[in-house]
């Protein structure tokens, strides 16, 4: 799959932007609860957040696969912004015939067990239920959720947190994860729309899982880069620790896990264009499973190589590893997605396993 020129240019410009603006002070400040507005504005100017929407809706008809490649950069640079969430929120809102915000957005539900429901109330609606741990929900102007209506799933565009009671939370990377509880909250008719074919809670969940897998592959690249560089700089026993075979062997494992994570995330991205929902789910499940496994092994090694330095707040490694430990649980953990992969394979039967693996 050759990378198209325009994609490469986009990736290069977003990389420069993150190198310039997604720096440690900005990330540290975001962890204290201050939204990284400057960083968001700079990303918004590239048009990436709503790029998958049709031009008529303010988008650029961009390929999902290109935008997922941008998410890898979000992971690589620990960018504390809801870019994946805004992309997905825009897609759900548009799928419900609603006009998405041009600012940052949150999206949900992000957990399978969370169900929201809509009931008719005059010519408007009432929304009930719990949507747990929505990324940055209390920091953004709009949140898009999917709820069960009387005739199937509907998209809902909320102003702010839409009258929900909010329990603020954070993941262990300090990224806001806020739980919204709706107790028959009244909504106007123009805030709700039926979802068109192909947009659903289930698709949102798996595309979110893929977003996390791709972001994790970027965070792994950064953790590996830091570990390799640190090993070459840190001198003990009169030579850089990278000269010790025990350290080299660990770094080789780290490199292998990182390469596997990138390859697995790419498998999921490739599945997006195929137009086969079952296949897409299967490959995204494989991606989240394999990337999660890699993250667990790689964080351990990256920290081991860094010694005490990597365990400090001051040094940058924790920006990547705390995100990896958070993101591997979000939108379904690797054991959960692994169970999906295994269940599909078993339901398909032993004699169909090879065909399943080699299917296009």
């Amino acid at each position, binding site marked *: 799959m050759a990378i198209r020129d325009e994609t490469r240019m986009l990736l290069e410009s977003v990389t420069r932007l993150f190198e310039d603006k997604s720096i440690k002070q900005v990330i540290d400040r975001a962890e204290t609860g201050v939204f990284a507005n400057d960083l968001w504005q700079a990303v918004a100017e590239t048009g990436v957040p709503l790029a998958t929407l049709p031009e008529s809706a303010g988008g650029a008809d961009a390929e999902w696969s290109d935008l997922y490649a941008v998410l890898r950069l979000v992971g690589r640079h620990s960018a504390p912004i809801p870019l994946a969430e805004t992309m997905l929120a825009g897609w759900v809102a548009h799928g419900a015939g609603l006009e998405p915000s041009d600012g940052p957005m949150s999206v949900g539900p992000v957990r399978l067990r969370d169900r929201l429901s809509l009931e008719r109330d005059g010519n408007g609606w009432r929304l009930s239920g719990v949507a747990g741990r929505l990324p940055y929900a209390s920091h953004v102007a709009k949140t898009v959720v999917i709820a069960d209506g009387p005739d199937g799933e509907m998209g809902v565009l909320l102003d702010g947190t839409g009258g929900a009671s909010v329990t603020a939370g954070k993941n262990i990377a300090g990224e806001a994860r806020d739980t919204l509880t709706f107790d028959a909250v009244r909504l106007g008719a123009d805030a709700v729309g039926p979802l068109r074919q192909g947009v659903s809670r289930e698709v949102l969940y798996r595309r979110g899982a893929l977003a996390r897998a791709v972001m994790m592959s970027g965070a792994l690249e950064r953790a590996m880069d830091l570990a*390799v560089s640190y090993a070459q700089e840190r001198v003990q026993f009169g030579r850089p620790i990278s000269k010790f075979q025990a350290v080299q062997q660990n770094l080789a494992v780290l490199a292998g896990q990182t390469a596997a994570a990138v390859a697995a995330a*790419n498998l999921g991205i490739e599945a997006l264009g195929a137009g086969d929902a079952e296949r897409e789910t299967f490959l995204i499940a494989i*991606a989240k499973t394999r990337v999660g496994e890699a993250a667990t092994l790689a964080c351990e090694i990256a920290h081991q190589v860094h010694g005490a330095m990597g365990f400090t707040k001051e040094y940058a490694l924790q920006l990547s590893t705390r995100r990896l430990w958070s993101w591997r649980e979000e939108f379904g953990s690797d054991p959960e997605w692994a169970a999906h992969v*295994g269940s599909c394979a*078993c*339901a398909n039967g032993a004699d169909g396993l090879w065909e399943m*693996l080699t299917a296009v």
Partner: protein
Amino acid sequence: MATPMFRFDPVELPPEALALRSEVRAFIRQHEQFMGFGQDGCNREFSRAMGRRGWIGMTWPKQYGGHQRSAFERYVVIEEMLAAGAPLSAHYIADRQSGPNILRFGTEEQKQFFCPKIAAGELTFCIGMSEPNSGSDLAGTRTRAVKVDGGYRINGSKLWTSNAHRSDYAILFCKMAVDGMEEPDRHAGATQFLLDLKSPGLDIRPVLNLLGEHHFNEIFLTDVFVPDNRLLGREGNGWNQVTSELAFERSAPDRFLVLFQMLREMVRVAGPTPDKATAAALGKLISQLATLRSMSLSIAGMLSEGLQPNNESAVVKDLGTRYEQDIPVVARQLFSAEPELEAMETYVSMIARSTMNAPRFSIQGGTREILRGIIARGLGLR
């Protein structure tokens, strides 16, 4: 970022490779009686049948018996055969590394003589690298060649030579003898020969493996004569040549499919609706396999572009052997069975066979430690 990242660009199989896959599957169904599990099987009849289909030397030039097909087509044939448990050993070494090395370094006469026979499935090669005191440290070879009238006289020994007793030729790695002190450069004088295993002065003795099977051999060479026209490449260029041979060896897509049938049986024993823990354990292995396959296909893509993805190949082999060694571990955790090679139940005999075979995966073709050393060098650490 400063650190070199190993590249595994996703590739899509071209349509001709997809069409070929169904042909290969039909062929496998017609040759069901040859298939087995973890058998490392050597069957000349099967190899000749593959040769007739044009599935050996697939990417080689037609003038040397090849078929000028793509690296992806070759990949499809090999992965289908491995997943089905086909006996490939009578041609596989020659197809994977001896033939390509002859095409790269051989004389016109050698290419004409060897390659068409290999492609027909009629000539079996083995690897003449390891010695009693020279395993991972290949430069420590003690086998010595001396120039004599019309050829070379060779003395020494080789060890761990798989299939030597069933092979026609070995590519022998040795050094030119020098008088007095050894050369300071450990790679100096290294030379490769195309050694006819019927040559006088050769003594091939079995070394049984821990399953009690005869794959390994020890070869003693006593004043073995090799004619001038069976020198491969140049005298003293052997290190360069053997490095290239190892690159062919390690980039092959054969490092993670040896136990595929065991994985398949695990899915069978789990049944259509396994509990969550069982499904997750299987799903983890399947996710590893799918990822390995995608990385391996990416290597085939790089090879077809004429690149030498040595680091990437080392990564895939290292990850692949880890995955294969995990298969029997997970198998016995999911469904415990006292292992027995000759058990009537397929699952029980497979656990026995894969448990006993597992140690070799991270030793053959470069130990885990050597591969990780290669990866570390690729990272700029050595």
